[in-house]
């Protein structure tokens, strides 16, 4: 058993008490952590968790409906992947939600294996997204330790220039460039220029012209 801080968390938003309770039971019985909400607004008030998570979302909700909640979450930039559950899904609606990034659009009542499969896919997707974000955050941290001069030099290095050329372009001694280059590689923990190029790209540093 993993401890709770690592167990994936499933959010259920459904205004129907009976459905909400039953879904929560089913997912808990399958080893997932579950939190339930009776409205989109209640869900929006909750901070996003640090563990992989996904959202099982009813379409017809009082107040902010499921589709609007999806749009709001997409607009915020980071949202748990969504599995829609609808009592009255139509094809255009499901197409729209899938275009907006929903993992699946299921109709009620849903067989447990179908629902669990969708939930697992959603969690896997969130886990992958988190890994990307975490990796990026790590590189961001490294890049933040660069001095502005080093950053400038890095832009030339990743443009594929030799030290001599960089020295001319920046009007500094070639020896100094060499020192900078060494520090950059160390701070960015890059084993090669190729790796440095990839890392710089990840944090949005563009090569010098």
């Amino acid at each position, binding site marked *: 058993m993993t401890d709770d801080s690592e167990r994936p968390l499933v959010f259920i938003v459904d205004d*129907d008490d*009976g*459905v909400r*309770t*039953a*879904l929560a*039971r*089913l997912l*808990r*019985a*399958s080893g997932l952590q579950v939190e339930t909400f009776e409205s989109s607004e209640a869900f929006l008030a909750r901070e996003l968790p640090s563990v992989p998570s996904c959202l099982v979302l009813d379409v*017809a909700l009082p107040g902010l409906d499921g589709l609007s909640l999806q749009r709001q979450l997409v607009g915020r930039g980071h949202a748990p992947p969504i599995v829609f*559950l609808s*009592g*009255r899904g139509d094809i255009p609606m499901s197409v729209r939600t899938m275009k907006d990034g929903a993992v699946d659009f299921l*109709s*009620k*009542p*849903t*067989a*447990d294996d179908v*629902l669990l499969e969708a939930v697992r896919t959603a969690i896997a997707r969130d886990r992958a997204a988190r890994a990307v974000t975490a990796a990026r955050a790590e590189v961001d941290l490294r890049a933040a330790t660069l001095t502005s001069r080093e950053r400038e030099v890095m832009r030339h290095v990743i443009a594929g220039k030799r030290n001599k050329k960089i020295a001319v372009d920046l009007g500094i001694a070639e020896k100094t460039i060499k020192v900078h280059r060494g520090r950059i590689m160390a701070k960015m923990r890059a084993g090669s220029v190729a790796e440095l190029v990839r890392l710089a790209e990840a944090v949005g540093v563009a090569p010098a012209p």
Partner: protein
Amino acid sequence: MRVVASLLTLGITAVVLGAQTVPPPGSKRVLVIYADQRLLPTNVVADSAIQATFAAESSFHIELLSEFLDVARFPGLAQSALDRDYLRQKYRARRPDLIIAGGGPVVRFLLRNRATLFSDVPILSAIALDTLDPAVRADTQIAGPKIIWPAGATMRLAFRLHPETRHVAVVSGATERDHGFLRSFRADTQSLPPGITFLWLTGLRMSDLRREIAQLPDHTIVMYLPVFGDASGTSYTPRQALDEFAAASPAPIYAEYDPMLGHGIVGGEMVEAAALGRTAALIARRILHGEAPAAAARGEPLRSVPTVDWRELRRWGIAESRLPPGTVVRFRSPSLWAEHRAAIIATIVALLLEGSLIVALLLERRSRNRARADLQKSEDRGWFAGHAARVGVWTWDVTPDRLSATPESREAAGLPVDESLGIAALYESIEPSDRAHVRLAIGSALETGRTLDIEYRVRTQDGGVRWITAWGQVDDSPDAPGVRLTVAALDVTARKKAELQVEQDRQEIARLGRAAAAGHLSASITHELNQPLAAILANAQAGQRLLAQQPPDISEVREILADIAGQDERAAGMIRRLRAHFERGDTRAEPIDLSEIARRMVAITRSEFVTRQVSVSLELPEALPLVSADRVQIEQVMLNLILNALDAMADAAPADRVLSIRVAAVEGIVRVSVADHGAGIHPEMRSRLFTPFATDKPGGMGMGLSISRSLVEAHGGRLTAENNADRGATFTFELPLPAAT
């Protein structure tokens, strides 16, 4: 001042009398003192909200005690002193940690006796701060959250919903408690809008109140202040009193207390009793945790909201658009009309179209008859009236077989060009499928001497089709050289096309209307039903998983089973309501002819017969005794049986697709049988055939037969089904004939 609020005796003002040190966590004791009796609905609701909120407290156990002063029945200062002594004795050894004062009378009682009764126990009062005496309000130890409950809001709501109001009848009781409410109402309602007058129905006997209420003039609204007792000395809870007279009222009733909703009031500006109880209990918990009462009582104010009973809105014809924004509408149950307006309108449009088509056809037929009569008149002159127009005229001499006509006539009548041909050439030019009936009609005209009146299609040289209507007469007078048929033929292709188009449009609209109604209805029902079904399925599957675990969590499984039962009951309730939808409505019995209804329903579904290639065999006696029944409902049954029969034959070979409808009167009943040549009723379906939601049709709802049977049985008849000896099934319904007089 708003003594009114003291009915909801859970106001929320913390009155702190003396410093209270907080004991370490353990058991806490809270005494709730209510102003009125135990069974007052407000008290019951509030009390259970308090209990529930206390039950959620996890740090310590809360022992809840309650007392009921019942000031309506036990008024007066002497009684108050007895109450004080009684409570002092009773609670000497069980001192409460906190008192919740349920209502203005209780707050006043406690403050009056604070020196000798519960002298150092904090008191959480139940009425809004501003309803207390100025002296109490000045007391710095009083703190409390706000209750925003604007005075007069209920009256304003009533005026808004009934803009034509001319009188306000105020109903109040005869006890001192009632007078308190009446005084407060008067204080809140100094004046009425111009043109509106008060009618006072206060301090009466219940029987007199009922009589007065029944005679209220038009454009009156009733303001119901609570009645705790009438002039004869009978005690009531306000809701019991309401039940005594509400039914007699020809005017809408308004009141401010939510337990009265559902008892004949339209609504009012209300604070939920349960919310009051909950709020009071939450503050109490914080005080018990050691928080200063003033701080504990701070928080979101409780706001009153306009609250109305949906059924009463309907009863008084109040459009929901007139409700103030944020109004809470309770007991909503949407009507068929509200839910399916589009489908109903489509159906009405289809019916209107059908009606106008019939009128158009009648007019057209009349003018044709008239034209025919005209032709007859001119016949003596040996020629035809349409000669000059675009009527083609030709003659056929039977022996020798010879067709003759002018070239223009040939053109107009769609005859072959070659003049030397005989009748065979005419037949040749006619569409093969029409040839037989033209040949038959001509043969019969020659044989009987009757006029010929036929319509047929001819194929033109460019491959198109023209519709020809032909009218002719046999001339076999003795002076004629031989038997000769003279025919006037008219090209009616344009008219025919228009007719067909109209018919197609009509069928399409009718079909769409039916499909929309059925589709819409089943979609909304499916959605509703899917909720409990989803809950049941997920519960059951969760249960299976739990049972597979070691050790299984039996108590959770028990809860799951209880929930499944509950959700099942919920689904059953929906089905009941759905049936009520279909079956409700005023059954209006009228004499109806079942033959005529069968004929009409077949006509309505004609397009279905055509598209599904089903032929129909009707045995509908003309002089059928009439049964007394609701036409619309019986039409619904008939239509349902016909459509079912069509569905049943979807997979049959086209040659087998015959639907037979037979109507017959036998021994005091009229029996209608609808027989199909489909697969018959599957043995598994047999027993469930008439139960709701039993269906073996893809996309079927399984409601048709169940509702049909209810409708027939409501007319004292019965609906049965059996398989035919050869193939298919026959559904039979019988309706009783009115007893012979």
